[in-house]
Protein backbone atom coordinates (compact mmCIF):
# COMPACT_ATOMS: atom_id res chain seq x y z
CA UNK A 1 0.00 0.00 0.00
CA UNK A 2 1.23 3.48 -0.88
CA UNK A 3 2.15 5.40 2.26
CA UNK A 4 0.42 8.73 2.47
CA UNK A 5 2.55 11.20 0.54
CA UNK A 6 0.75 14.49 1.10
CA UNK A 7 -0.03 15.52 -2.44
CA UNK A 8 -0.75 19.21 -2.11
CA UNK A 9 -3.43 21.35 -3.69
CA UNK A 10 -1.89 24.79 -4.24
CA UNK A 11 -4.55 26.27 -6.49
CA UNK A 12 -8.07 25.62 -7.69
CA UNK A 13 -10.90 27.21 -9.59
CA UNK A 14 -14.20 26.20 -11.02
CA UNK A 15 -16.96 27.41 -13.28
CA UNK A 16 -20.47 26.17 -12.73
CA UNK A 17 -23.97 27.42 -13.09
CA UNK A 18 -26.56 26.25 -10.62
CA UNK A 19 -28.17 23.34 -12.41
CA UNK A 20 -30.94 23.01 -9.91
CA UNK A 21 -33.43 25.18 -8.11
CA UNK A 22 -32.50 25.53 -4.48
CA UNK A 23 -32.66 27.90 -1.58
CA UNK A 24 -28.92 28.32 -1.05
CA UNK A 25 -26.12 30.31 -2.54
CA UNK A 26 -23.16 27.97 -2.82
CA UNK A 27 -20.73 30.85 -3.07
CA UNK A 28 -21.84 32.26 0.26
CA UNK A 29 -21.80 28.96 2.07
CA UNK A 30 -18.33 27.91 0.91
CA UNK A 31 -16.75 31.30 1.48
CA UNK A 32 -16.01 32.61 -2.00
CA UNK A 33 -14.38 35.99 -2.18
CA UNK A 34 -16.31 38.55 -4.19
CA UNK A 35 -14.00 38.21 -7.20
CA UNK A 36 -14.21 34.41 -7.07
CA UNK A 37 -17.97 34.70 -6.91
CA UNK A 38 -18.17 36.78 -10.04
CA UNK A 39 -15.72 34.48 -11.87
CA UNK A 40 -17.22 31.24 -10.71
CA UNK A 41 -20.81 32.02 -11.46
CA UNK A 42 -20.04 33.00 -15.02
CA UNK A 43 -22.14 30.55 -16.97
CA UNK A 44 -20.31 27.83 -18.82
CA UNK A 45 -20.74 28.87 -22.43
CA UNK A 46 -21.65 25.82 -24.50
CA UNK A 47 -22.82 27.75 -27.56
CA UNK A 48 -19.70 26.72 -29.45
CA UNK A 49 -16.67 24.62 -28.71
CA UNK A 50 -14.43 27.70 -29.02
CA UNK A 51 -16.39 29.56 -26.35
CA UNK A 52 -16.42 26.50 -24.13
CA UNK A 53 -12.66 26.20 -24.58
CA UNK A 54 -12.30 29.85 -23.49
CA UNK A 55 -14.18 29.05 -20.27
CA UNK A 56 -11.79 26.17 -19.56
CA UNK A 57 -8.74 28.30 -20.34
CA UNK A 58 -9.88 31.13 -18.04
CA UNK A 59 -10.59 28.65 -15.24
CA UNK A 60 -7.09 27.17 -15.54
CA UNK A 61 -5.50 30.64 -15.53
CA UNK A 62 -7.36 31.52 -12.34
CA UNK A 63 -6.13 28.33 -10.67
CA UNK A 64 -2.54 28.98 -11.82
CA UNK A 65 -2.74 32.54 -10.44
CA UNK A 66 -3.88 31.18 -7.12
CA UNK A 67 -0.93 28.76 -7.10
CA UNK A 68 1.45 31.62 -8.07
CA UNK A 69 2.51 29.69 -11.14
CA UNK A 70 3.22 31.10 -14.56
CA UNK A 71 2.86 29.38 -17.91
CA UNK A 72 6.25 28.23 -19.18
CA UNK A 73 7.94 28.25 -15.77
CA UNK A 74 10.89 25.99 -14.94
CA UNK A 75 8.65 23.20 -13.63
CA UNK A 76 7.72 20.03 -15.44
CA UNK A 77 3.97 20.31 -15.81
CA UNK A 78 1.54 17.54 -16.72
CA UNK A 79 -2.06 17.96 -17.82
CA UNK A 80 -4.59 15.40 -16.58
CA UNK A 81 -8.00 15.77 -18.16
CA UNK A 82 -11.31 14.28 -17.05
CA UNK A 83 -14.40 14.33 -19.19
CA UNK A 84 -17.31 12.03 -19.75
CA UNK A 85 -19.85 13.01 -22.34
CA UNK A 86 -18.10 16.06 -23.63
CA UNK A 87 -16.63 14.86 -26.91
CA UNK A 88 -19.86 13.16 -27.84
CA UNK A 89 -21.80 16.28 -26.99
CA UNK A 90 -20.04 18.40 -29.54
CA UNK A 91 -20.06 15.60 -32.09
CA UNK A 92 -23.80 15.85 -31.72
CA UNK A 93 -23.54 19.34 -33.20
CA UNK A 94 -20.44 19.22 -35.32
CA UNK A 95 -18.45 16.11 -36.13
CA UNK A 96 -15.30 18.07 -37.00
CA UNK A 97 -14.85 19.12 -33.41
CA UNK A 98 -13.66 15.96 -31.76
CA UNK A 99 -10.25 16.06 -30.09
CA UNK A 100 -10.22 19.87 -30.06
CA UNK A 101 -9.72 20.92 -26.45
CA UNK A 102 -6.85 18.80 -25.14
CA UNK A 103 -4.31 19.60 -27.93
CA UNK A 104 -5.18 23.29 -27.61
CA UNK A 105 -4.72 23.27 -23.84
CA UNK A 106 -1.42 21.45 -24.28
CA UNK A 107 0.04 24.17 -26.48
CA UNK A 108 -1.57 27.13 -24.63
CA UNK A 109 -0.19 26.07 -21.24
CA UNK A 110 3.14 24.85 -22.65
CA UNK A 111 2.72 21.40 -21.14
CA UNK A 112 6.17 19.79 -21.01
CA UNK A 113 5.16 16.67 -19.08
CA UNK A 114 2.43 14.15 -19.77
CA UNK A 115 -0.97 14.76 -21.28
CA UNK A 116 -3.49 12.22 -20.05
CA UNK A 117 -7.25 11.90 -20.58
CA UNK A 118 -9.22 9.89 -18.05
CA UNK A 119 -12.81 8.86 -18.60
CA UNK A 120 -14.59 6.75 -16.02
CA UNK A 121 -18.01 8.38 -16.47
CA UNK A 122 -19.12 10.36 -13.41
CA UNK A 123 -16.00 9.26 -11.50
CA UNK A 124 -13.69 10.74 -14.20
CA UNK A 125 -12.68 13.72 -12.06
CA UNK A 126 -11.70 11.53 -9.12
CA UNK A 127 -9.83 9.14 -11.46
CA UNK A 128 -7.84 12.09 -12.81
CA UNK A 129 -6.93 13.19 -9.27
CA UNK A 130 -5.75 9.65 -8.42
CA UNK A 131 -3.67 9.53 -11.62
CA UNK A 132 -2.14 12.92 -10.73
CA UNK A 133 -1.22 11.64 -7.24
CA UNK A 134 0.58 8.68 -8.80
CA UNK A 135 2.45 10.87 -11.31
CA UNK A 136 3.62 13.17 -8.52
CA UNK A 137 4.53 10.19 -6.38
CA UNK A 138 6.86 8.84 -9.07
CA UNK A 139 8.26 12.35 -9.60
CA UNK A 140 7.40 12.24 -13.28
CA UNK A 141 6.14 15.82 -12.94
CA UNK A 142 6.57 18.69 -10.49
CA UNK A 143 3.10 20.09 -11.09
CA UNK A 144 -0.13 18.51 -12.32
CA UNK A 145 -2.96 20.60 -13.76
CA UNK A 146 -6.05 18.47 -13.23
CA UNK A 147 -8.98 19.65 -15.35
CA UNK A 148 -12.50 18.25 -15.41
CA UNK A 149 -15.20 19.52 -17.75
CA UNK A 150 -18.56 18.46 -19.06
CA UNK A 151 -21.74 20.00 -20.37
CA UNK A 152 -25.38 19.22 -19.96
CA UNK A 153 -26.31 18.32 -23.54
CA UNK A 154 -28.92 16.14 -25.20
CA UNK A 155 -26.74 13.03 -24.96
CA UNK A 156 -26.50 12.66 -21.19
CA UNK A 157 -29.86 14.35 -20.58
CA UNK A 158 -31.80 12.10 -22.94
CA UNK A 159 -29.86 8.95 -22.10
CA UNK A 160 -30.06 9.35 -18.34
CA UNK A 161 -33.73 10.23 -18.50
CA UNK A 162 -34.41 6.93 -20.28
CA UNK A 163 -32.46 5.11 -17.59
CA UNK A 164 -34.60 6.74 -14.91
CA UNK A 165 -31.68 8.57 -13.35
CA UNK A 166 -33.02 12.13 -13.74
CA UNK A 167 -35.25 13.76 -11.17
CA UNK A 168 -38.90 14.41 -11.89
CA UNK A 169 -38.91 17.78 -10.16
CA UNK A 170 -35.58 18.64 -8.55
CA UNK A 171 -32.66 16.81 -7.00
CA UNK A 172 -33.28 16.00 -3.29
CA UNK A 173 -30.41 13.80 -2.10
CA UNK A 174 -31.09 11.59 0.91
CA UNK A 175 -34.73 12.77 1.17
CA UNK A 176 -37.70 10.41 1.18
CA UNK A 177 -39.18 11.80 -2.04
CA UNK A 178 -35.97 11.85 -4.08
CA UNK A 179 -36.49 10.88 -7.70
CA UNK A 180 -33.10 11.29 -9.34
CA UNK A 181 -30.36 13.70 -10.22
CA UNK A 182 -30.20 17.03 -12.09
CA UNK A 183 -27.46 17.61 -14.64
CA UNK A 184 -25.36 20.76 -14.90
CA UNK A 185 -22.45 22.23 -16.82
CA UNK A 186 -19.19 22.33 -14.94
CA UNK A 187 -15.48 22.98 -15.15
CA UNK A 188 -13.12 22.29 -12.27
CA UNK A 189 -9.35 22.80 -12.08
CA UNK A 190 -6.91 21.68 -9.39
CA UNK A 191 -3.21 22.49 -9.27
CA UNK A 192 -1.44 19.65 -7.50
CA UNK A 193 2.18 19.44 -6.37
CA UNK A 194 4.39 17.27 -4.20
CA UNK A 195 4.80 18.57 -0.67
CA UNK A 196 8.57 18.11 -0.85
CA UNK A 197 9.04 19.99 -4.11
CA UNK A 198 7.09 23.18 -3.46
CA UNK A 199 9.82 25.81 -3.49
CA UNK A 200 7.81 28.95 -4.10
CA UNK A 201 7.72 31.03 -0.95
CA UNK A 202 4.39 32.60 -1.78
CA UNK A 203 2.67 29.28 -2.55
CA UNK A 204 -0.05 28.25 -0.13
CA UNK A 205 -1.17 24.72 0.56
CA UNK A 206 -4.97 24.79 0.58
CA UNK A 207 -5.31 21.09 1.22
CA UNK A 208 -3.44 17.83 1.05
CA UNK A 209 -4.69 14.63 -0.52
CA UNK A 210 -3.53 11.93 1.86
CA UNK A 211 -5.29 8.81 0.65
CA UNK A 212 -7.42 7.29 -2.06
CA UNK A 213 -9.19 4.04 -2.76
CA UNK A 214 -10.50 2.78 -6.10
CA UNK A 215 -12.65 -0.32 -6.46
CA UNK A 216 -15.06 -1.64 -9.05
CA UNK A 217 -18.56 -3.03 -8.55
CA UNK A 218 -18.32 -5.63 -11.35
CA UNK A 219 -22.09 -5.69 -11.15
CA UNK A 220 -23.92 -3.68 -13.80
CA UNK A 221 -22.81 -0.95 -16.25
CA UNK A 222 -25.39 1.58 -15.05
CA UNK A 223 -26.61 0.35 -11.68
CA UNK A 224 -24.59 0.21 -8.46
CA UNK A 225 -24.20 -3.05 -6.57
CA UNK A 226 -26.83 -2.92 -3.78
CA UNK A 227 -24.30 -4.37 -1.34
CA UNK A 228 -22.03 -1.35 -1.82
CA UNK A 229 -19.00 -3.65 -1.45
CA UNK A 230 -16.80 -1.71 -3.87
CA UNK A 231 -17.54 1.68 -2.31
CA UNK A 232 -16.88 0.18 1.13
CA UNK A 233 -13.53 -1.27 -0.02
CA UNK A 234 -12.58 2.04 -1.64
CA UNK A 235 -13.41 3.91 1.55
CA UNK A 236 -11.44 1.48 3.71
CA UNK A 237 -8.43 1.59 1.36
CA UNK A 238 -8.46 5.40 1.30
CA UNK A 239 -8.52 5.66 5.11
CA UNK A 240 -5.82 3.00 5.38
CA UNK A 241 -3.58 4.87 2.93
CA UNK A 242 -4.15 8.11 4.86
CA UNK A 243 -3.09 6.24 8.00
CA UNK A 244 -5.79 7.80 10.16
CA UNK A 245 -8.50 6.42 12.39
CA UNK A 246 -12.17 6.64 11.37
CA UNK A 247 -12.81 8.99 14.32
CA UNK A 248 -10.47 11.57 12.79
CA UNK A 249 -12.78 12.03 9.79
CA UNK A 250 -15.32 14.76 10.50
CA UNK A 251 -17.01 15.35 7.17
CA UNK A 252 -17.99 13.46 4.01
CA UNK A 253 -18.83 15.20 0.74
CA UNK A 254 -21.09 12.42 -0.50
CA UNK A 255 -21.58 11.45 -4.11
CA UNK A 256 -25.23 12.17 -3.20
CA UNK A 257 -26.67 11.98 -6.69
CA UNK A 258 -30.26 11.90 -5.45
CA UNK A 259 -31.21 8.55 -6.98
CA UNK A 260 -33.11 6.13 -4.77
CA UNK A 261 -30.55 3.37 -4.82
CA UNK A 262 -27.36 5.41 -4.83
CA UNK A 263 -28.16 7.45 -1.71
CA UNK A 264 -29.30 4.34 0.12
CA UNK A 265 -26.13 2.41 -0.73
CA UNK A 266 -23.88 5.32 0.20
CA UNK A 267 -25.64 5.72 3.55
CA UNK A 268 -25.34 2.01 4.33
CA UNK A 269 -21.65 1.99 3.37
CA UNK A 270 -20.94 4.97 5.65
CA UNK A 271 -22.74 3.19 8.50
CA UNK A 272 -20.81 -0.05 7.87
CA UNK A 273 -17.44 1.66 7.73
CA UNK A 274 -17.80 4.27 10.47
CA UNK A 275 -20.11 2.32 12.81
CA UNK A 276 -21.19 4.59 15.72
CA UNK A 277 -19.05 7.44 14.41
CA UNK A 278 -21.27 7.55 11.29
CA UNK A 279 -23.91 9.43 13.29
CA UNK A 280 -21.37 12.06 14.37
CA UNK A 281 -20.19 12.77 10.83
CA UNK A 282 -21.32 15.80 8.86
CA UNK A 283 -22.46 14.70 5.40
CA UNK A 284 -23.74 16.79 2.51
CA UNK A 285 -24.31 16.60 -1.22
CA UNK A 286 -22.92 19.46 -3.31
CA UNK A 287 -25.01 18.15 -6.23
CA UNK A 288 -28.11 19.33 -4.37
CA UNK A 289 -26.91 22.90 -4.95
CA UNK A 290 -25.00 22.86 -8.24
CA UNK A 291 -26.40 19.76 -9.93
CA UNK A 292 -24.42 16.83 -11.28
CA UNK A 293 -21.50 18.07 -13.39
CA UNK A 294 -20.76 14.55 -14.74
CA UNK A 295 -17.07 14.16 -15.64
CA UNK A 296 -16.17 17.33 -13.74
CA UNK A 297 -18.06 16.35 -10.57
CA UNK A 298 -15.11 14.66 -8.80
CA UNK A 299 -12.95 17.78 -9.16
CA UNK A 300 -15.67 20.37 -8.49
CA UNK A 301 -16.68 18.53 -5.31
CA UNK A 302 -13.07 18.25 -4.10
CA UNK A 303 -12.79 22.05 -4.54
CA UNK A 304 -15.99 22.62 -2.55
CA UNK A 305 -14.72 20.24 0.16
CA UNK A 306 -11.41 22.12 0.42
CA UNK A 307 -13.16 25.50 0.69
CA UNK A 308 -15.53 24.24 3.38
CA UNK A 309 -12.68 22.81 5.45
CA UNK A 310 -10.78 26.06 5.23
CA UNK A 311 -13.67 28.26 6.35
CA UNK A 312 -14.89 25.66 8.86
CA UNK A 313 -18.42 25.70 7.46
CA UNK A 314 -20.34 22.84 5.89
CA UNK A 315 -22.95 23.83 3.34
CA UNK A 316 -26.46 22.40 3.60
CA UNK A 317 -27.93 19.59 1.52
CA UNK A 318 -30.61 21.48 -0.34
CA UNK A 319 -34.14 20.56 -1.39
CA UNK A 320 -35.12 18.40 1.59
CA UNK A 321 -38.35 16.60 0.74
CA UNK A 322 -39.30 14.22 3.51
CA UNK A 323 -37.44 12.18 6.09
CA UNK A 324 -36.20 8.77 4.92
CA UNK A 325 -35.94 6.42 7.89
CA UNK A 326 -33.08 4.48 6.28
CA UNK A 327 -31.09 7.56 5.29
CA UNK A 328 -30.92 8.68 8.91
CA UNK A 329 -27.44 10.21 9.15
CA UNK A 330 -26.60 13.88 9.62
CA UNK A 331 -26.99 15.27 6.08
CA UNK A 332 -27.06 18.85 7.22
CA UNK A 333 -30.48 19.49 5.68
CA UNK A 334 -31.51 23.07 5.22
CA UNK A 335 -28.80 24.86 7.20
CA UNK A 336 -25.05 25.39 7.23
CA UNK A 337 -23.02 23.98 10.09
CA UNK A 338 -19.80 25.06 11.74
CA UNK A 339 -17.21 22.30 11.77
CA UNK A 340 -13.49 22.29 12.35
CA UNK A 341 -12.14 19.00 11.06
CA UNK A 342 -8.67 17.99 10.00
CA UNK A 343 -9.82 15.24 7.60
CA UNK A 344 -12.67 14.97 5.10
CA UNK A 345 -13.64 12.44 2.43
CA UNK A 346 -15.09 12.94 -1.03
CA UNK A 347 -16.87 10.01 -2.71
CA UNK A 348 -17.38 9.52 -6.45
CA UNK A 349 -19.42 6.77 -8.08
CA UNK A 350 -19.64 6.43 -11.85
CA UNK A 351 -21.43 4.50 -14.55
CA UNK A 352 -19.30 1.46 -15.25
CA UNK A 353 -18.98 0.69 -11.54
CA UNK A 354 -15.95 2.78 -10.60
CA UNK A 355 -16.09 3.80 -6.93
CA UNK A 356 -13.49 6.26 -5.64
CA UNK A 357 -12.95 7.73 -2.19
CA UNK A 358 -10.39 10.48 -1.60
CA UNK A 359 -9.21 11.60 1.85
CA UNK A 360 -8.32 15.29 2.23
CA UNK A 361 -6.35 16.92 5.02
CA UNK A 362 -6.94 20.57 5.88
CA UNK A 363 -4.26 22.87 4.51
CA UNK A 364 -2.42 25.70 6.19
CA UNK A 365 -4.82 28.40 4.98
CA UNK A 366 -7.48 29.54 7.39
Amino acid at each position, binding site marked *: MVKSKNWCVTGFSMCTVAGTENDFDLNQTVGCTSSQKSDWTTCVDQSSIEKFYDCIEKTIFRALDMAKLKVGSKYRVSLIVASNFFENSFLEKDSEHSDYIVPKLKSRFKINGLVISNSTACASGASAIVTACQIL*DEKISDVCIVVGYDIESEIPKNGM*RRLGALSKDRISPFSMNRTGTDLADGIGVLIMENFSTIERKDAKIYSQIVGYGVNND*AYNPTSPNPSGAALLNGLKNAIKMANISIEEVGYINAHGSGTKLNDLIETNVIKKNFKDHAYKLFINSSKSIIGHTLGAAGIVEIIITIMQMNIRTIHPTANFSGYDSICDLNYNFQKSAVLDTMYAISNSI*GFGGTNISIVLKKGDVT
Partner: protein
Amino acid sequence: MIISNISSMKYSKEFNFYGYGYKTRTRIDKCAQMCIHTTASVLKTEENVMPERLGLITVTKFGCTASRKSYLDQLNSLPDKRFASPKDFVQSISNIPNSMATIENNIMGFTNNFIGGSESTLIALWQVVYLLKNNIADKMVLTAFDNDICASLKVEKQTDSEKKLEIVEFDLQEKFSLKINLVDEMKFKNQVEVNVQKNSLAPDLILKLESILKENTR
Protein backbone atom coordinates in the same frame (compact mmCIF):
# COMPACT_ATOMS: atom_id res chain seq x y z
CA MET B 1 14.21 -1.95 -10.52
CA ILE B 2 12.67 -4.98 -12.12
CA ILE B 3 9.42 -5.75 -10.45
CA SER B 4 6.83 -6.67 -13.02
CA ASN B 5 6.55 -9.12 -15.81
CA ILE B 6 4.07 -9.43 -18.60
CA SER B 7 2.86 -12.98 -18.36
CA SER B 8 0.16 -13.22 -20.97
CA MET B 9 -0.90 -11.41 -24.14
CA LYS B 10 -3.82 -11.89 -26.51
CA TYR B 11 -5.49 -9.98 -29.28
CA SER B 12 -8.77 -10.19 -31.15
CA LYS B 13 -9.72 -8.99 -34.57
CA GLU B 14 -13.27 -9.10 -35.86
CA PHE B 15 -14.23 -11.26 -32.91
CA ASN B 16 -17.80 -12.55 -32.99
CA PHE B 17 -19.04 -12.69 -29.44
CA TYR B 18 -22.27 -14.47 -30.29
CA GLY B 19 -20.61 -17.03 -32.55
CA TYR B 20 -18.36 -17.86 -29.63
CA GLY B 21 -21.34 -19.46 -27.97
CA TYR B 22 -21.95 -16.68 -25.51
CA LYS B 23 -25.58 -16.29 -24.55
CA THR B 24 -26.78 -12.80 -23.99
CA ARG B 25 -30.11 -11.15 -24.53
CA THR B 26 -28.84 -7.68 -25.21
CA ARG B 27 -26.76 -6.24 -28.02
CA ILE B 28 -23.17 -5.57 -27.05
CA ASP B 29 -21.00 -3.20 -29.08
CA LYS B 30 -18.23 -4.94 -31.02
CA CYS B 31 -15.52 -3.09 -29.07
CA ALA B 32 -17.04 -4.23 -25.79
CA GLN B 33 -17.31 -7.80 -27.10
CA MET B 34 -13.63 -7.85 -27.96
CA CYS B 35 -12.70 -6.18 -24.68
CA ILE B 36 -14.56 -8.87 -22.71
CA HIS B 37 -13.03 -11.65 -24.82
CA THR B 38 -9.37 -10.59 -24.79
CA THR B 39 -9.50 -9.73 -21.09
CA ALA B 40 -10.93 -13.19 -20.41
CA SER B 41 -8.25 -14.76 -22.63
CA VAL B 42 -5.35 -13.40 -20.61
CA LEU B 43 -7.06 -14.35 -17.37
CA LYS B 44 -7.98 -17.83 -18.56
CA THR B 45 -5.53 -19.66 -16.37
CA GLU B 46 -5.95 -17.34 -13.40
CA GLU B 47 -5.70 -19.04 -10.06
CA ASN B 48 -6.78 -17.82 -6.63
CA VAL B 49 -6.68 -14.10 -7.10
CA MET B 50 -8.96 -12.11 -4.85
CA PRO B 51 -11.29 -10.13 -7.15
CA GLU B 52 -10.55 -7.00 -5.07
CA ARG B 53 -6.84 -7.36 -5.87
CA LEU B 54 -7.33 -7.85 -9.59
CA GLY B 55 -7.56 -4.67 -11.69
CA LEU B 56 -8.29 -3.61 -15.24
CA ILE B 57 -7.15 -0.55 -17.15
CA THR B 58 -8.57 0.06 -20.61
CA VAL B 59 -7.36 2.44 -23.30
CA THR B 60 -9.15 3.59 -26.42
CA LYS B 61 -8.68 6.33 -28.93
CA PHE B 62 -12.13 6.33 -30.50
CA GLY B 63 -14.31 4.36 -28.06
CA CYS B 64 -17.33 2.40 -29.22
CA THR B 65 -17.76 4.14 -32.56
CA ALA B 66 -20.69 2.05 -33.78
CA SER B 67 -22.84 2.73 -30.71
CA ARG B 68 -21.89 6.38 -30.63
CA LYS B 69 -22.75 6.87 -34.27
CA SER B 70 -26.00 5.00 -33.89
CA TYR B 71 -27.04 7.06 -30.86
CA LEU B 72 -26.11 10.37 -32.47
CA ASP B 73 -27.97 9.42 -35.66
CA GLN B 74 -31.06 8.64 -33.60
CA LEU B 75 -30.82 11.94 -31.72
CA ASN B 76 -30.52 13.82 -34.97
CA SER B 77 -33.24 11.97 -36.88
CA LEU B 78 -35.96 10.89 -34.46
CA PRO B 79 -38.80 13.40 -34.04
CA ASP B 80 -38.95 12.51 -30.35
CA LYS B 81 -35.45 12.04 -28.92
CA ARG B 82 -36.82 10.06 -26.01
CA PHE B 83 -37.11 7.07 -28.34
CA ALA B 84 -33.35 6.92 -28.94
CA SER B 85 -32.01 3.58 -27.75
CA PRO B 86 -30.75 3.63 -24.15
CA LYS B 87 -28.52 0.65 -25.03
CA ASP B 88 -26.74 2.73 -27.62
CA PHE B 89 -26.47 5.59 -25.13
CA VAL B 90 -24.87 3.41 -22.47
CA GLN B 91 -22.43 1.83 -24.91
CA SER B 92 -21.44 5.17 -26.35
CA ILE B 93 -19.81 5.95 -22.97
CA SER B 94 -16.16 5.15 -23.40
CA ASN B 95 -15.58 3.18 -20.20
CA ILE B 96 -18.51 0.79 -20.66
CA PRO B 97 -16.36 -1.93 -22.35
CA ASN B 98 -14.18 -1.74 -19.24
CA SER B 99 -17.29 -2.15 -17.10
CA MET B 100 -18.54 -5.15 -19.09
CA ALA B 101 -15.13 -6.81 -18.92
CA THR B 102 -15.03 -6.33 -15.12
CA ILE B 103 -18.51 -7.86 -14.78
CA GLU B 104 -17.79 -10.87 -17.00
CA ASN B 105 -14.38 -11.52 -15.44
CA ASN B 106 -15.22 -10.59 -11.83
CA ILE B 107 -12.61 -7.84 -11.59
CA MET B 108 -13.27 -5.75 -8.49
CA GLY B 109 -9.97 -3.99 -7.90
CA PHE B 110 -8.51 -0.80 -9.38
CA THR B 111 -10.08 0.22 -12.69
CA ASN B 112 -9.39 3.13 -14.97
CA ASN B 113 -10.04 4.10 -18.58
CA PHE B 114 -7.71 6.28 -20.64
CA ILE B 115 -8.58 8.08 -23.86
CA GLY B 116 -5.77 8.21 -26.43
CA GLY B 117 -3.54 6.21 -28.74
CA SER B 118 -0.40 4.14 -28.14
CA GLU B 119 1.17 6.78 -25.91
CA SER B 120 -1.82 6.45 -23.58
CA THR B 121 -1.34 2.68 -23.61
CA LEU B 122 2.25 3.24 -22.46
CA ILE B 123 1.04 5.55 -19.66
CA ALA B 124 -1.55 2.92 -18.73
CA LEU B 125 1.20 0.28 -18.61
CA TRP B 126 3.19 2.59 -16.34
CA GLN B 127 0.13 2.92 -14.07
CA VAL B 128 -0.26 -0.86 -14.03
CA VAL B 129 3.34 -1.25 -12.84
CA TYR B 130 2.86 1.54 -10.26
CA LEU B 131 -0.17 -0.27 -8.81
CA LEU B 132 1.73 -3.55 -8.51
CA LYS B 133 4.85 -1.91 -7.13
CA ASN B 134 2.85 -0.12 -4.46
CA ASN B 135 0.79 -3.16 -3.54
CA ILE B 136 -2.51 -1.60 -4.60
CA ALA B 137 -3.18 -4.65 -6.81
CA ASP B 138 -1.74 -8.16 -7.17
CA LYS B 139 -2.46 -8.64 -10.87
CA MET B 140 -3.48 -6.17 -13.51
CA VAL B 141 -4.87 -6.52 -17.01
CA LEU B 142 -4.32 -3.81 -19.58
CA THR B 143 -6.73 -3.91 -22.51
CA ALA B 144 -6.60 -1.53 -25.48
CA PHE B 145 -9.36 -1.44 -28.07
CA ASP B 146 -10.09 0.55 -31.20
CA ASN B 147 -12.21 -0.06 -34.27
CA ASP B 148 -11.89 -3.75 -35.12
CA ILE B 149 -8.95 -4.64 -32.96
CA CYS B 150 -8.42 -5.24 -29.27
CA ALA B 151 -5.33 -6.40 -27.39
CA SER B 152 -4.80 -7.35 -23.74
CA LEU B 153 -1.82 -8.11 -21.57
CA LYS B 154 -1.57 -9.30 -18.01
CA VAL B 155 1.09 -7.91 -15.71
CA GLU B 156 1.96 -9.38 -12.37
CA LYS B 157 4.60 -9.13 -9.73
CA GLN B 158 7.67 -11.04 -10.69
CA THR B 159 7.54 -14.73 -9.99
CA ASP B 160 9.82 -17.51 -11.19
CA SER B 161 7.19 -19.06 -13.37
CA GLU B 162 6.24 -18.14 -16.90
CA LYS B 163 8.53 -15.18 -17.37
CA LYS B 164 8.13 -13.58 -20.71
CA LEU B 165 8.82 -9.87 -20.64
CA GLU B 166 10.23 -8.04 -17.67
CA ILE B 167 9.46 -4.37 -17.56
CA VAL B 168 12.65 -2.51 -16.78
CA GLU B 169 11.87 1.15 -17.07
CA PHE B 170 9.64 3.73 -18.70
CA ASP B 171 10.67 6.93 -20.36
CA LEU B 172 7.40 8.80 -20.40
CA GLN B 173 8.78 12.27 -20.86
CA GLU B 174 11.42 12.59 -23.52
CA LYS B 175 11.14 9.68 -25.91
CA PHE B 176 7.98 7.84 -24.88
CA SER B 177 9.68 4.51 -24.73
CA LEU B 178 9.71 1.33 -22.72
CA LYS B 179 12.73 -0.78 -21.87
CA ILE B 180 12.03 -4.46 -21.42
CA ASN B 181 14.03 -7.58 -20.77
CA LEU B 182 13.25 -10.57 -22.92
CA VAL B 183 13.67 -13.72 -20.91
CA ASP B 184 13.86 -17.15 -22.52
CA GLU B 185 13.73 -20.55 -20.88
CA MET B 186 17.47 -20.45 -20.16
CA LYS B 187 16.95 -17.18 -18.25
CA PHE B 188 18.99 -15.34 -20.81
CA LYS B 189 18.13 -11.69 -20.81
CA ASN B 190 18.23 -9.43 -23.78
CA GLN B 191 17.17 -5.82 -23.39
CA VAL B 192 14.99 -4.17 -26.01
CA GLU B 193 13.76 -0.62 -26.18
CA VAL B 194 10.26 -0.14 -27.55
CA ASN B 195 9.60 3.32 -28.92
CA VAL B 196 6.01 4.38 -28.95
CA GLN B 197 4.58 6.11 -31.97
CA LYS B 198 2.19 8.88 -31.12
CA ASN B 199 -1.14 9.06 -32.91
CA SER B 200 -1.26 5.32 -33.52
CA LEU B 201 -4.16 3.21 -32.32
CA ALA B 202 -4.34 2.26 -28.66
CA PRO B 203 -3.75 -1.50 -29.15
CA ASP B 204 -0.63 -0.92 -31.31
CA LEU B 205 1.82 -0.95 -28.40
CA ILE B 206 0.54 -4.30 -27.14
CA LEU B 207 0.69 -5.77 -30.67
CA LYS B 208 4.24 -4.48 -31.02
CA LEU B 209 5.25 -6.12 -27.74
CA GLU B 210 3.74 -9.36 -28.92
CA SER B 211 5.60 -9.27 -32.23
CA ILE B 212 8.89 -8.60 -30.39
CA LEU B 213 8.20 -11.55 -28.17
CA LYS B 214 7.39 -13.81 -31.12
CA GLU B 215 10.52 -12.76 -33.00
CA ASN B 216 12.74 -13.45 -30.04
CA THR B 217 11.30 -16.78 -29.08
CA ARG B 218 11.18 -18.21 -32.57
